[in-house]
């Protein structure tokens, strides 16, 4: 199933060049990323895999403009985000990136619709309009009857669907997922990945998934394997699948 033929039909969405990152000082200094060079294309589902501590979360944090690399360049959709100031990075993330987290990170005390609407509210969209849009998106992820409920009343899979809706509501060009299935059982995890696969069909969108769950590798277009802060291998997966997206 896996091949090494690169997909070149879509433009490069994410590009890193010579990324290095360390944590700590002196004897405690830990070099977690070594000279990372990587290109991820739009319309693709990219997996960054490897054992715990190999640097994959650090890498997506830098890709998403949350962490700053010590050296190297990161370009997202033509914007060199390593050159942006902190406030500019925040604005860039707000307008271009959606996040899906391992622990969902939903706010327990607001409704599911409000959780989904958060990125729009951060953009300054009126509350009512944001909620309406959130309700539509919740319907698309199969939670139309849960819009006024609270995350605590949902199963893990349903919470992750709310998180996916939140990540997509501002129509981001990059969706970053950190271990999106590790808190879910196998069946629910597969459902979530199928949903994300649909998300990744959008030719203008790039999805990056960090995982060490090898049960879900089959959903990837490109597998980036890391080890000890270095890219060990990059493998392309060729699938045939529809190209239109419902999101």
């Amino acid at each position, binding site marked *: 199933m896996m091949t090494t033929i690169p997909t070149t039909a879509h433009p490069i969405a994410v590009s890193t060049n010579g990324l290095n990152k360390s944590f700590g000082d002196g004897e405690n200094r830990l070099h977690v990323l070594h000279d990372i060079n990587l290109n991820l294309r739009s319309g693709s589902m990219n997996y960054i895999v490897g054992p715990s501590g190999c640097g994959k979360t650090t890498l997506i*944090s830098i890709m998403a403009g*949350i962490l700053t690399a010590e050296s190297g360049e990161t370009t997202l959709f033509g914007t060199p985000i390593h050159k942006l100031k902190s406030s500019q990075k925040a604005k860039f993330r707000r307008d271009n990136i959606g996040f899906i987290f391992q622990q969902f990170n939903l706010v327990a005390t607001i409704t599911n619709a409000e959780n989904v609407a958060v990125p729009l509210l951060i953009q300054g969209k009126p509350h009512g309009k944001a909620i309406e849009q959130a309700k539509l998106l919740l319907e698309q992820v199969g939670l139309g009857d849960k819009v006024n409920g609270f995350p605590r009343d949902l199963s893990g899979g349903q919470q992750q669907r709310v998180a996916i809706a939140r990540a997509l509501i501002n129509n981001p060009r990059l969706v970053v997922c950190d271990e999106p299935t590790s808190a879910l059982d196998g069946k629910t995890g597969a459902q979530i990945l199928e949903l994300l696969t649909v998300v990744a069909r959008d030719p203008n969108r790039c999805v990056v998934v960090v995982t060490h769950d090898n049960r879900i590798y089959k959903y990837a277009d490109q597998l980036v394997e890391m080890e000890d802060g270095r890219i060990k291998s990059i493998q392309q997966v060729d699938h045939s699948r529809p190209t239109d997206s419902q999101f």
Partner: protein
Amino acid sequence: MYQIALKMLFGDKAKFLTLVVGLTFSVMLLTQQGSIFCGLMLRTASNIFETGAPIWVVDPKATSFNDVVDMKLSEVLRVRSVEGVKWAVPLALHAATAQSDKGDTGAVQIIGVDDQTLIGLPTGMTKGRYEDINQPGAVIIAKGRSERYGSPQVGDFFELNDQRVKVVGMLETQKSFSPFPIMYTTMNKVQQLFPEKKRPVSFILVKNESTISPEKLIERITAQTGLHAYGLWDFVFLTMQFWAANTGIPINLGINVLMVLIIGTVISAQTLYAFMLENTRQFGTFKAIGIENKTLAGMVLVQSAVVGIIGHGIGSGLISTLGLLNPPNSQLAFYTPPQLIGITFVLVCGFCLLAAVLSIIKVLRIDPAIVFRG
């Protein structure tokens, strides 16, 4: 996002209650200490309120109701001659030693009022008649602190400066800060009781004509007589300042208030800070999504302000209710003026702001990368 901030605040009822209860207790302590201070200060001026006179004229060296320099009776005539004075009457305040027929002895304050008008004699007679004060040797006793004389009754006799006086009435007066019993009599009898005093007048009580404002008349009296004239509240504040400066009340209560302020600040800051810490992951998520720092700071400020307003409302409301339930003239000196509510509101705003700033510093320092940690 401010709506979201409020829902985050109200959503967890237990945490919200903890925050509000912390603030409420701080406000209650602050308002309670302040109310006691105001109550005590108000009692220092109770005799002034009871006369009902709008203008008080005293010797320029007098510093308060309780620290007067006596004047000659002729000064009353000088004041009466000032244009715009409707009436001007003398009021005497002297100390004496009284001994009851039962043998109880102690210091008393003698207040002498104008013989004709009885202006200066408080209302609230519970036994006897006002006009009986004109009988020879008659005094009216203010109830309250007269128990040291075995709760005297109408008809009882006392010895005052080697002269016998008879109780002809009992008055229910406001509690006074001064511990000495008060006996009211007329100016004529004051002069009989204190024949050695060539200056029997302590105050001149004045009422303005309707054609002139009290303020204007005060200026005129001061300019034309060389005496000092004060409005009712100015004289009240002068007397409060005298007691405040000479009793150490402000320092002693001030230390309490300072302690309450520190405790209130610590409680508020700690509870708000703990609330922010518990929401670190949520705030980190907002930061990862791209919220601006000023919006994040605004959310914390809104949460802090709402807790402060609710805590202040409940705290000051409870204390004000306690004040209303406190019976008049009880031993508890307790008065909660609207200004005190305003002052405690400003203080609460202050320590909520401090707590918010500490929390904002923490929130702004949240590394959004924490959202990727499981």
